[in-house]
């Protein structure tokens, strides 16, 4: 019963940690937009955490530049299990317009397992909320497997 309670709670209280890997700030602004009164994801229990140690969901934006690759990977590794990695915007999924550049390492999925991709440049807040809701389900599953 206690395990079930924890699994339920995991789905209801996902804390986000946001990593910018060279993004143009479009996605970053949209991510902040979902905290505003209009969309208010806090009603679903979402909260922006200040440190990766406290996070459940890591949101990566930007095309993962060479400079930031190791930093992104090490920060992701510092997030405790169960964790869920979400890429946001087209950049970390494909490299978007930066694809082929010598300094861009996208897609991120070649380095770590990515759970949810939220497409768009930049994605609409509704899309982000949908993606994050999917991520919470995955999170609950992962917790159940632990």
């Amino acid at each position: 019963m206690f395990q079930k309670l924890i699994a339920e709670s995991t789905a209801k209280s996902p804390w986000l940690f946001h990593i910018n890997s060279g993004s143009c700030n479009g996605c970053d602004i949209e991510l902040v937009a979902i905290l505003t009164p209009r969309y208010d994801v806090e009603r679903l229990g979402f909260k922006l955490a200040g440190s990766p140690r406290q996070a459940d969901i890591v949101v990566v934006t930007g095309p993962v530049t060479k400079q930031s690759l190791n930093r992104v990977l090490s920060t992701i590794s510092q997030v405790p299990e169960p964790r869920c990695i979400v890429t946001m915007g087209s950049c970390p999924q494909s490299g978007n317009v930066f694809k082929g550049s010598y300094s861009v390492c996208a897609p991120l999925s070649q380095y770590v397992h990515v759970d949810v991709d939220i497409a768009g440049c930049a994605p609409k807040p509704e899309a982000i909320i949908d993606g994050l809701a999917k991520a919470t389900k995955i999170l609950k599953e992962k917790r159940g497997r632990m």
Partner: protein
Amino acid sequence: MTANIFLNGLQYLGYILIFPGFLFCFVCGMLLTGIDRKLVARMQKRVGPPILQPFYDFFKLCGKETIVPAAASRTTFLMAPLVGLAALVVIQLFIPIHGFSAFSGMADIIVILYLLLIPALAAILGAAASGSPYAGVGLSREMVTIISCELPLVLILLAVAKTVGNAMGTGLCFSMSDIADYQVQHGSLITRLSMIPAAIAFAMVIPGETGSHPFDTAEAETEICEGMHAEYSGAPLAAFKLSHAIKVLTLTSLFVALFFGGIGTGLVALDGVIVFALCVIATALFISFVHAVTARLKIEQVFKYYWTVVSGLALVSLVLAWYGM
């Protein structure tokens, strides 16, 4: 005889574990935090999280992995949250609720002032033990906040001691249970002129002690990565979150016990307790209100504010109390 001792022991164990100990603290503290979050959200025209959100957060954190950084001192890092939590629950046992306290006559108000330092100290040492520079900055700010709150708190408590002592004819009264009894018999202290500035000052101290807006410089998640808790994850973090919630409860109930005790019509048996609970909730709502309408101060502004405005109010109260008003 033996059965008696056994029953007494069981009773005290009940006090510690259920009411007003762990279970009570856990539920009430979390509910107060939930109300706070909901209220702030509503004031910002948001829907806000469910009132039970702090419980979800707590249980989720309990199920998370606990990472001990390689640079941390393991024992201190892991023990600090537990010690802080236990110490905080013990303080709650000493605070009388409408004349009832689980362990009265064991600690006076000055001792409670010092016991309140232990949870903060545990958090500080845990932060220091994590080795993170963010935590270093956080603990520095937390310590400065403690120093800031200490002067007004001292003045307030001395004023209360003097007022009750004057009224009781002993000159001085440090005992928490005597203060509560006095209020039950003679009406609450807030009705006295000298206690009004002290009560206002105490209400201003609560956000600082609990690290709520605008005095949450120590946790400032947007500038210093959660400050003291930067390296904490999983169950220890849950313990810290719980400590924070209980601290809100402890300080608000201390506030009510000191200034609003003894209000009640005497019609119903539990009347006083209900009024007490309502007062606690009202105080918590006031804190939430301050939380919602203010922005974070800088740490030196926090210090300045407490040592000038709040201490000034408390000093006025002390001087009035000294001259018997």
